[in-house]
């Protein structure tokens, strides 16, 4: 009797209307995290800066009077005196040591670095996370093989891969992205593996298995949404790292093919000529690099604060 009264109350229209506002107001984890992120002023400002940088790399060329590979013969040989930043001859950022317009080259280099970061970073994390999830879920021999490969991989200096890959496929940007993904397949592997190992013994996974779901479905439909927050945080850390890796290998001269350039290659050229007093060649690429790294750092920081469940 009491039970049916309770049922009647639950099914009544009045109850539904009473509960409706609260149900509408309750937000998902992601909406919550989104709101927390939006409240973080530094992170939002950084998103804006990064947006400007992306716009600069796409549309910057519209304001340039020179192309990035054209040599200005008027200043060649007198670069220290005439090659500095100037409004008159259209070299907003001056020229590089070969007399090419630095502004156009910085635009091109920014584009390369951002493309490499935003493609190679997420893809390698996805690759590592997938392997980590499989390895954590299945365990056993597969897990040991993956971990063994992981150990060996980290013990090989990664520059070897860049050199060998270039011998096979050349030094274009798409090859650069591919080899960076290949080198970084270990990104996020351990952390996702740990998470999955922890989650796979939880009741909802048992329930899914009882329902007769396949392993693939359990991993990608039920476990993946639960580790997504880790993957997002990790990706935000890997993107600046990847940009840095690209810059470093370009600095060392095994990066992208001339006349294409990247921020790292520009930094390297700037550093090699600074003894001659042409400091703008180091300053402008360094400034762009710092802006990109600072904003990515604060975006990552904001994401971590917004998504880390300890904060919930």
């Amino acid at each position, binding site marked *: 009797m009491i039970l049916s009264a309770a049922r009647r109350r639950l099914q009544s229209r009045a109850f539904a209307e009473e509960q409706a506002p609260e149900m509408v107001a309750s937000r998902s984890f992601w909406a919550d995290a989104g709101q927390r992120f939006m409240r973080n002023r530094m992170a939002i400002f950084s998103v804006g800066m990064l947006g400007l940088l992306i716009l600069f790399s796409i549309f910057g060329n519209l304001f340039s009077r020179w192309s990035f590979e054209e040599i200005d013969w008027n200043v060649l040989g007198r670069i220290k005196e005439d090659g500095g930043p100037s409004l008159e001859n259209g070299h907003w950022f001056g020229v590089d040591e070969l007399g090419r317009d630095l502004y156009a080259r910085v635009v091109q280099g920014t584009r390369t670095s951002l493309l490499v970061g935003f493609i190679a970073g997420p893809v390698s994390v996805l690759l590592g996370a997938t392997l980590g999830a499989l390895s954590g879920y299945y365990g056993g021999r597969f897990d040991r093989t993956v971990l*063994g490969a992981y*150990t*060996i991989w*980290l*013990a*090989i*200096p990664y*520059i*070897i*891969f*860049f*050199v*060998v890959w270039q*011998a*096979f496929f050349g030094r274009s940007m798409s090859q650069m992205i591919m080899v960076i993904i290949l080198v970084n397949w270990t990104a996020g592997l351990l952390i996702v593996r740990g998470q999955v190992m922890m989650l796979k013994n939880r009741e909802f996974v048992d329930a899914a298995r009882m329902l007769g779901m396949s392993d693939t479905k359990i991993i990608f439909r039920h476990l993946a949404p639960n580790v997504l927050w880790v993957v997002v945080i990790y990706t935000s850390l890997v993107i*600046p790292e990847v940009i*840095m890796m690209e*810059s*470093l290998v370009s*600095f*060392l*001269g*095994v990066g992208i093919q001339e006349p294409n350039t990247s921020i*790292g290659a520009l*930094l*390297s050229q*700037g*550093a090699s000529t*600074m*003894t001659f007093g042409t*400091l703008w060649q*180091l300053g402008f690429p*360094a400034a762009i*690099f*710092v802006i990109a*790294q*600072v904003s990515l*750092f604060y975006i990552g920081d904001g994401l971590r604060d917004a998504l880390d469940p300890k904060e919930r």
Partner: protein
Amino acid sequence: MLNYTLRRLLMVVPTLLILVIFAFYLMRLAPGGPFTSERPLPPAVMANVLERYGMDEPLHVQLWTYVSNIVCCFDFGPSFSQKDRSVNDVIAQGFPVTLTYGFWSAVFVLLLGVPLGIIAALRHNGFWDYTMTGLAIFSQIFPNFVLAPLLVLLFTLSWGLLPGGGWNGGQWQYIVMPAIALGTSYMASVARLTRGSMLEVLGSPYIRTARAKGLPERTIILRHALKPALLPTLTYMGPVFVYMITGSVFVDVFFSTGGIGQDFINGAYSRDYAILLGLAILYAVLTFVLTLMVDLLYAWIDPKVRAGLS
């Protein structure tokens, strides 16, 4: 404990073998080689050169010779690009340099990073805490390849205090900048790690007990809090120490120290497989051995871990 150490050491052998086989085939199967140049050598000369370096035999025979030479005589073969020098010579000359500034860099990291982290934790949300956070961000933004030119710009070009590169037998003036450039980002990480774990330890019940007993603050921190707080830092320092003593390739190249990083990059340019492989093996051995040492140190410090091993 001994059992565990032996087991770990035995694991190193097959791992290294896999690494050598993998890297060997990877490099040999790539098109081009140390003797291909713009102007191709006459076939007869090429055949002679290949024979001189034993490269005319099938790959698996070469691999076998390479590995057995290392096992029996510790001989890593001749360098392809530097005539009349063996890989052993190259490493013997370059590694001490890298080891020296890497060591000082590690000293710099520990002597500055750990105290900074402890002070930041003790003055939580105070001046030193913010200084440290600032430093952490700074080091994230200025990786060594941006920091090194800046250092040279300041110390060499503007103030003329330190030489901008070279080694000169390892006088201290030549060590300072490579060590700082190599260590700064790790120093910030160490400070951040130490701060985090110190804060955690200081908030734990046994520290409250120690305070309640009326122990002086100094004893609480040095005797009770420090040891457990340094464990994460220790774990982190293992791989970092390997990076440091193998040196950053970049630091070697930028400061022209003559360390193994420079040999590595030259080997990469000239496709000198022998040097690349030799250095990769050195790097891997150091990684494995140092990780093992850190694990053992960990067990020595933490009784819980020690119980888990035996």
